[in-house]
């Protein structure tokens, strides 16, 4: 992405006292001002991902999340495995080599993608949460309030992407906050800021989508016809009731190989049919009960 604006702001600030924080630093690092009332999200462009995992480390460092060191998985270079209570960024690695030497442009023989909470709109986890611990912030992101969560665990099966999880330690649900604390301070999320290749781009949703569509067109003309967006309105990554994902992706292979469902849907839509069918049954059985005359003496 072109940091034109960003550079200008750098120039303005190079004379500033290094001790003082720069107001709206995101304007320099991500080229966008962060204000309540607007929608923010991530455009993760997998064609620029070099699998360095800086995003994973930055997230754990900023949020002081514990390490979950296990033995090596043997799944290519992915030793993280999956998103969870203590892992809010996860870089996937899938090898599809078959001896290729010349390849369609942009990593299509060793797929890497930095996965994260999609901050869905509407968000199934939030819709399931009975306590209101999960809420939508002023930046249109989805966050768990730790002091309110009572560990009912209902958000876990609700999430179509297996993101949110209960921590063994405190029994509460944890997931990416889209750096709520940093956004409040005008800072770009830690993972995006640390990404050396701008594979993770943070910004206002409308800008990101526009930028992403241009990128797809560019890739098509550069000889990568397989490039498409996952999670933009009505595209792959959305389905009945699930309108769009604030954290969306540019992919070059079918979603399944990135461990993403092609057409996730809004679980809450199942509530009515099952409830009504159930009530009808009960009505029927009530009548039956009367007819068999359980009350007659």
């Amino acid at each position, binding site marked *: 992405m072109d940091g034109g604006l960003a550079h200008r702001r750098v120039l303005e600030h190079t004379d500033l006292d290094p001790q003082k924080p720069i107001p709206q630093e995101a304007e320099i690092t991500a080229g966008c001002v962060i204000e309540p009332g607007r929608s923010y999200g991530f455009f993760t462009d997998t064609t620029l991902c070099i699998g360095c995992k800086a995003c994973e480390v930055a997230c754990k460092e900023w949020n002081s999340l514990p390490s979950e060191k296990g033995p090596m998985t043997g799944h290519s270079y992915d030793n993280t495995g999956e998103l969870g209570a203590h892992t809010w960024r996860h870089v996937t690695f899938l090898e599809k080599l078959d001896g290729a030497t010349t390849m369609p442009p942009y990593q299509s023989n060793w797929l890497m993608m930095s996965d994260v909470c999609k901050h869905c709109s509407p968000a199934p986890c939030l819709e399931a949460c*009975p306590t209101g611990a999960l809420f939508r912030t002023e930046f249109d992101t989805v966050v768990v309030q730790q002091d309110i969560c009572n560990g009912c665990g*209902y958000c876990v099966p609700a999430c179509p992407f*297996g993101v949110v999880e209960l921590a063994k330690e405190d029994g509460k649900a944890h997931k990416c906050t889209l750096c709520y604390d940093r956004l409040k301070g005008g800072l770009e999320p830690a993972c995006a800021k640390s990404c050396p290749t701008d594979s993770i781009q943070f910004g206002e949703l409308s800008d990101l989508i526009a930028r992403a569509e241009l990128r797809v067109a560019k890739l098509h003309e550069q000889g990568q016809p397989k490039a498409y967006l996952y999670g933009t309105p009505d595209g792959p990554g959305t389905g009945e009731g699930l309108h769009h994902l604030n954290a969306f992706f540019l992919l070059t292979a*079918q979603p399944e190989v990135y461990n993403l469902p092609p*057409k996730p849907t809004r679980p809450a839509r199942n509530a009515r049919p099952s409830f009504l069918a159930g009530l009808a049954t009960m009505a029927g059985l*009530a009548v039956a009960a009367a007819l068999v005359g359980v009350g007659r003496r």
Partner: protein
Amino acid sequence: MTRWNGETYHGRQVTKPSSFDWKVSAYIFILGVAGSAQIIAAVARPNRSLETQARLLALGGSILGPLVLIRHLKTPSRWFNMLRIVRPTSPMSLGSWLLTAFGGLSALTALGSVFGRRWPFARRISEAAQGPAAVAGAGMSVYTASLLSSTSTPLWAAAPAPLGVQFGSAAMAGAASALALLQRRDGEDEIAQRLERLALLAGGTEMLASQAAKAQWRRAGVAPRGTPDALIKGGGTVAGALLPFAAHLLGRALGGRAEKLLPEAASLAMLAGGAAMRHGVLTAGNASARRPGDVFRTTQR
């Protein structure tokens, strides 16, 4: 986009299984029985003894159930946060309120039965509460089905309507069986037989619903396997319907003490079967959430 070729990401799970275990199954079972008991109570009049037993059964359930449920919370001390908000999109939120209402109403109805003789006003309150209690009871019997089906767990989400019918009829079968047993103990064999007939009817419904669910699951490609599958079959179809039918027929044929003992065995089988079926569905769901294939098959474009 190209059709899925069966390839997964190193065979890893996509969605995460719920943390729901036997406690949740038990809760579903207990409040199913309690809820349906209130329906029976509503139609039991003028049979006071049955009405009272039904109301007390409901009250008991609405006290025991929550205790089990709270045990399943990872932070039980914060169970009351459930009543912080009303979230219309969350069956668990609505369910919590419904449970609260049901508990209260059950208490009121019980009030009339217990103190009705001494304090007439108590009777009047319970009369007034009985209708709403029955409606809430119906809700209690089925809302757990919508709770499970409004998730991204492939098996739970694949057959919402049949699941509602399954859970509801199982609840009624359980309540009727439980009361039948009590009536038999009181020597009210005739009432008991009518309740047993109701139970068999509900069991039959549940068996059909189970078949419907099975069919939908198979079509979606998320058919349950192993133990959970056995629990659903064994609990829902065999113990929940076929065995009881057989027992009753046999009882008739043999006559004598068998005519009393076999129906009692049938009622017990129905209660056990209902609980087993619920646990089967719960665990089958958790297993399907772990299978990437189940998730991808149910989320194709």
